[in-house]
């Protein structure tokens, strides 16, 4: 399973990478939405973990382009520091399948990742 982590914070990318690699996933990283779009065009991913606030292209814009240009319809988790209802709505409208508030605990992350990639059922 290939996962693309899209976040401008290197520590966050490293933390998510550690959690996912420990569970056997193959991880790639992008520092903003623009780089993520380029990687999505060139590679196949089974899941995207996307931050909202990033320079150059934010997470909403990335997901909207990913979906509307039909680049990829693989599941996407949007992660943010913001817990407001409006942010959830905007994330789902942009094309997210799940919205999680940082910081994410490893067990919590893996539970949802496995559900989204179809390795576990509810």
């Amino acid at each position: 399973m290939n996962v693309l982590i899209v976040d401008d914070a290197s520590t966050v990318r490293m933390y998510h990478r550690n959690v996912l690699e420990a569970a056997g996933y193959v991880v790639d990283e992008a520092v903003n939405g623009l780089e993520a779009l380029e990687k999505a065009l060139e590679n196949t991913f089974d899941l995207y973990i996307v931050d909202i606030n990033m320079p150059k292209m934010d997470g909403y814009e990335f997901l909207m382009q990913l979906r509307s240009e039909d680049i990829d319809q693989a599941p996407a988790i949007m992660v943010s520091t913001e817990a407001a209802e409006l942010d959830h709505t905007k994330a789902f409208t942009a094309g997210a399948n799940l919205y999680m508030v940082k910081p994410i605990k490893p067990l919590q992350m893996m539970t949802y990742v496995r559900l989204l990639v179809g390795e576990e059922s509810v």
Partner: protein
Amino acid sequence: MALKKSNTTAPDEAQSSQRDCSEISQDLISEDPSKRRWAARDIVSCEHASVMLLDQLEAEKDISVKQIILSSLTQIGDTEAVNGLVRCLRTEDVSLRNEAIEAMKHLPQEVASIMASLLNDPDPDVRIFAVNILESLCHPDVEQWLIDVIRDDEHINVCATAVDLLGEVGSEQSEPALQALKERFTDEPYIQFAADLAIKRIIGS
């Protein structure tokens, strides 16, 4: 055939340095985006430019005009401009917010004078954006501001954002605050991970 560089300035977009400020301010609210673009650039030397630019920023839909308005506000860098950029931090428009953060990074002295109040803002999101601004703010107090954040701020994501940055800009004087942060958030794996990483980077450097 010789390659010829195209002229990117259309004749009707040609900027006239002779225009007076009242004409420029009219162009700033014109329906024509190219006129607004030029006006946003040329208005910098006019009186009350920041106020006019900030008014237009709220109404502006064209991304390229918005970018020039933010660039002009950065160039002006007066109190009005900085306060206007702070207001952008509270907007729901993510791209405008991010562009305001980038613009404020270029105003170290002006932003430094309001940094303490930004880092104590009641809204944790504004405090996170303030830490984001510190990322590229060339100012001697950056490390101390970050130490204060991880020592005093009760919001985990504000602290988490500050720890990321301390790992990059911190020195040995940050280490006690990083250790104290780990003790404050013993049940949070991310804080443990980020603080350990920051300490390792600091000791390593």
